[in-house]
């Protein structure tokens, strides 16, 4: 760390002025000039202890953004502030190894360092040439400006460090309050001075962009069905990612959507989940139980439902219409193999072992399910249904189709039928469904 003795500098300057033949009255005010974002500022030299150049500061966690950390100044630990961040002006990307320009201030026996872009020189002026601040001349909060002064064809904004320091103290004591005050002050100033780079509340716009990207990358459409979940997820996401909220690629979108998926989506059901679903189903003495399962994927839901229904309604004939637009998935669903550990769980009574040792569902279970390659947006030929099981399907249709499909649900549901959709999906209020919940599952019935 190199140090320039300020006294030395001041002396040089005095000598210079003395050398001038013109009778110039002695400057009664001296200030150290520096630049922030190519604008000239100055601080009363009385407050400045020294000038330094320093590199790595020790970062202190949980402080305000303009507190860069602390620094060891010849044995004394002093806090370092970045004046640029403090004033909310554009900060050039901090180079870890570059030495920053520091102004070491001493106020009330408290030392602290201020990082600035460039330190210029000591300038002497007449006190009476210092003009009171006009908001237009500065693009930082007027509260911190004690005046404006012109020297050598350059205009300097004289900062009131006492005020800054005082505010900093407050901020440190009650972090958020001070910062908020600071922010609102700056915002007020921003209204007057549009040159200051704005930081408006972009969350609505951000959310809109995220929704668009979700639609593009994952075909997930943000509508009334998932709005509640989406808002909550957005605020979680924002906290996680800070300013970098936008979904730049498919992986980002995947990460965003990860908590959306209902439990046991595309998986075999646990015993508990099967029991929850069983409890959800109404009493039904009909001879035939008809189920509509759009978006069945590889068939885990359909088969699990078949088992649950057979158990709950042992005398009835179960027919499940399982649809998907993924041809490969739904074609393979007819020949699904049950892994050994699943086959010995609650699925046991419904599976049988094939000659090659693998497990598959018994024929009477398979006979219950009609796997169809079908786009639920097109009209269907289903009979009236007792149960609609459409998990995480609606959100992947465009808005108009979502409404059409929900209308189809209503049309095809018998009087005492229920609809179960994704755990993070909800039926829009406009459809007047009655809602009943069991844990994380919601059953919707017609009103």
């Amino acid at each position, binding site marked *: 760390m190199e140090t320039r003795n300020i006294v030395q500098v001041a002396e040089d300057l005095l000598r210079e002025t003395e050398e001038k033949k013109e009778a110039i009255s002695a400057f009664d005010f001296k200030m150290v000039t520096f630049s922030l974002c190519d604008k000239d500022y100055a601080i009363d030299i009385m407050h400045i202890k020294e000038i330094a150049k320093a590199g790595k500061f020790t970062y202190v966690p949980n402080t305000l953004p303009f507190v860069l950390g602390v620094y060891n100044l010849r044995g004394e630990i002093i806090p370092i502030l970045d004046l640029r961040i403090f004033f909310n002006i554009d900060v050039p990307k901090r180079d870890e190894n570059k030495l920053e320009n520091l102004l070491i201030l001493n106020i009330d026996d408290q030392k602290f360092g201020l990082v600035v872009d460039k330190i210029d020189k000591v300038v002497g002026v007449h006190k009476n040439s210092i003009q009171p601040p006009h908001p237009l001349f500065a693009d930082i909060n007027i509260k911190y400006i004690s005046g404006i002064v012109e020297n050598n064809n350059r205009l300097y904004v004289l900062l009131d460090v006492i005020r800054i320091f005082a505010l900093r103290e407050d901020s440190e004591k009650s972090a958020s309050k001070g910062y908020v005050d600071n922010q609102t002050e700056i915002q007020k100033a921003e209204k007057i001075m549009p040159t200051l780079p704005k930081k408006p509340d972009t969350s609505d716009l951000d959310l809109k962009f995220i929704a668009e990207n979700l639609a593009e990358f994952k075909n997930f459409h943000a509508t009334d069905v998932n709005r509640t979940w989406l808002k909550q997820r957005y605020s979680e996401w924002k906290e996680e990612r800070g300013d970098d909220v936008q979904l730049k690629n498919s992986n980002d979108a995947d990460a965003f959507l990860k908590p959306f998926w209902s439990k046991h989506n595309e998986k075999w059901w646990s015993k508990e989940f099967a029991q929850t679903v069983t409890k959800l189903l109404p009493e039904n003495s009909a001879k035939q139980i008809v189920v509509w399962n759009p978006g069945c994927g590889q068939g885990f839901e359909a088969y699990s439902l078949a088992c649950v229904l057979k158990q709950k309604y042992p005398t009835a004939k179960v027919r499940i219409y399982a649809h998907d*637009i993924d*041809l490969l998935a*739904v*074609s393979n*669903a*007819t020949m699904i193999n049950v892994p050994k550990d699943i086959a010995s769980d609650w699925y046991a009574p419904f599976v049988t072992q094939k000659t090659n040792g693998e497990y598959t569902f018994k024929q009477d279970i398979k006979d219950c399910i*009609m*796997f*169809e*390659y*079908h*786009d639920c947006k*097109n*009209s*269907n*030929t289903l*009979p009236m249904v007792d149960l609609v099981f459409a998990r995480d399907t609606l959100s992947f249709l465009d808005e108009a189709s979502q409404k059409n499909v929900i209308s189809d649900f209503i049309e095809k549901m018998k009087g005492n039928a229920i609809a179960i959709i994704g755990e993070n999906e909800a039926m829009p209020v406009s459809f007047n469904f009655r809602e009943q919940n069991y844990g994380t599952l919601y059953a919707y019935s017609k009103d």
Partner: protein
Amino acid sequence: MNVVYINPFVATSISILQEVLGGAEVKRGDLGLKPTAVPIMGVAALVGLAGDVEGRVLFDMTIDTALKIASVMNGEDLPEFDDLAKATISELANLITAQVVTKLHELGFHFDLTPPALFVGQKMEVAALDGENVEALIVPLLTEYGKVEINFSIRERV
């Protein structure tokens, strides 16, 4: 469309078309689903299905493609889309649909087909089953003579 039907439909369409074209290459395009009412490319051969399932199979192609295929099938160059050419395309539709019916019969689905009907015209549209739009499975087949789109629209007798 019940997934069990799909493979028989697609496999039969490709093999028969290949056979009648004298072993020419037939490539299968991506399968799709459409609501039934579809505009026709110029020539449409329609075969009805009745029984455990009801519906129809539609063979769709341009007049140009139809003429070329008919020529190959007859072993002679047909100058215009006359009765012989029409009969040829109808027969093609019949062959494919009949073998589909046979295959599905072996799988346990019993139904029959009707004699084919041929439509020729520009800007035609074949409308849906009894007013209701029953979804159709689209199987595009690409040959050196052009594209033949086979449109299966069936539903089970509930």
